[in-house]
């Protein structure tokens, strides 16, 4: 079943199309990897789905309901949650309060204080940060802050989770931990779309990969298909080998 579907999704910044006529879909329960060079429009696509930006044209449907025109907090309550490329934690609160914000406001039904606290503690335990719950958020490493963002997104009870470069800037140990975390989230039945530059992570866990370049979708398929796709190797993977040599 298609949980999320986009048709002709287009976003102009001035005269430049950051995302141009992209058709895409996400199947329930899968992990969809979204890759592409810098400036390809990956984060813009996330911002369009979560309504941080209005669509220029096209439409996005979540479980058949149109998302365009809704405010971000409504979309969160419908069951689409996200994390941010540049971590956007609440610097003026300890870890637990950061997660509590999601628990209190992210679900469509009103939740009691005790229930919110237990949800938040469970989520922190799930991401492996229960020992840190009283720590000021700025004392955490980048990797841990990203985990707090994941916990904060999870307590909003999403059906679809958008992870924007969860692994960027992490050490290789942290990357494998994060990969394991993402699979555990999928095993809970949450559908995931992840933007990632770390190829090992994308190829390791996603069922399907979609490639964007200059705002257009240039390829879509299983990891194997993508890694053998000539066009993708030319503009994306190939670029990396050149940069490496």
């Amino acid at each position, binding site marked *: 079943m298609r949980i999320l579907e986009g048709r002709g999704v287009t976003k102009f910044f001035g005269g430049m199309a950051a995302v141009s006529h992209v058709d895409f879909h996400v199947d329930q329960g899968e992990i969809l990897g979204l890759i592409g060079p810098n400036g390809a429009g990956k984060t813009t696509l996330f911002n369009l789905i979560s309504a941080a930006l209005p669509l220029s044209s096209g439409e996005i449907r979540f479980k058949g309901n149109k998302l365009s025109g809704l405010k971000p907090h409504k979309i969160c309550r419908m069951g689409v949650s996200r994390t941010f490329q540049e971590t956007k934690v609440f610097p003026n609160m300890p870890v637990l309060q950061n997660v*509590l*914000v999601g628990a209190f*406001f992210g679900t469509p039904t009103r939740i009691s204080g005790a229930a919110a606290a237990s949800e938040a503690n469970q989520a922190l335990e799930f991401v492996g940060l229960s020992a840190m719950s009283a720590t000021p958020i700025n004392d955490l490493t980048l990797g841990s802050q990203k985990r707090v963002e994941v916990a904060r997104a999870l307590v909003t009870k999403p059906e679809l989770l958008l992870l924007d470069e969860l692994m960027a800037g992490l050490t290789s140990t942290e990357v494998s931990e994060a990969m394991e975390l993402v699979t555990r989230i999928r095993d809970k039945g949450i559908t995931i779309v992840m933007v990632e530059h770390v190829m090992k992570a994308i190829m390791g866990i996603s069922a399907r990969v979609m490639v964007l370049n200059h705002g257009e979708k240039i390829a879509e398929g299983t990891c194997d298909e993508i890694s053998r796709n000539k066009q993708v190797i030319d503009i994306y993977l190939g670029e990396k080998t050149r940069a490496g040599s």
Partner: protein
Amino acid sequence: MDIIRFVSTHRKLLPVGFLLLILIFLTTFPLYTKAYDIRVLTFILIWVVLAVSWAMFSGTTGYMSLAPAAFFGLGIYAMALLQRELPFPLIIAIGGAISFAFAVLIGLVTLRLRGVYFTIFTFGLVVFMTEITQYLETRLLLKHGQSIIPIDNVTLFYIMVGLAVAAVLITYLIRRSRWGLAMLSIGGNEEAAEHMGVNTTMVKVFTFAISAVFMGVAGVIAAPVLLYVNSNIAFSTFYSFMPIFMAILGGMGTAYGPVIGAVILGYLEITLRSQLFNYFMLVFGIVMVGVILFLPNGIVGLVPMLRDKLGPLISKLRKGGQAQQDANT
């Protein structure tokens, strides 16, 4: 040593007892003081209400509002124009209601502005209110300024105590509630707050309006203290800037910080103004620069700072006491 032990075991009772003392002091104050002192304390309480209600919105959401004077002046003019037609309690309600409605209107239009643009707009609002009031007053009422019938000082004082207590209490309750958490999340990162399900527009506008209610009601009660007002007095930008200074001096991190700042600066303002006339601004400026340089978290911020410095000393004392006790048994 017993005192230290008592304090450390009953730490939570301390603020309650302290609050009770302040309340007893305030309620018995008119019994043993001169009329002038009551007026001074009434004015300090006006500052307390303005500073607390300013911090209620701006201290948590981070939106620096310069609008207090607009709502305060609105309250003053509500009293000046209605006092001959309606009973005082009704005017208080009307002053609050007008401020609430006006703040909702202003909030819906301007709270999409971020950072300095919001601040500039609210400042412009105060200037606009001054001019439009003067224009309407001279055109419609054919006069400039309003004299206000005095009301018994003690009555005004008690109403002001009630309003100040309500402002502090409501700020405290909001801070502890999920509503307060939503406000803090907006101050922390508004975009993230919106994406985590917080209806940021609603939270901002409603909190802005609640804080405006207190400012408006404070204006209604302040009018009979001022006796005469015109548009320049009622909408003086002084009423916008002072609450901010007070909140910064006291510290915005807690509900009681602005109270401390308002009491200190309010007292300073009244005494300096009567002794140094307009030079008091000079002293004020020096105090403000000092606070921003040395106490970025205000007077309240001193507590953790001192705890860090004195903490080891106190624990050493406590250990010493323990040892002495052990020796005795």
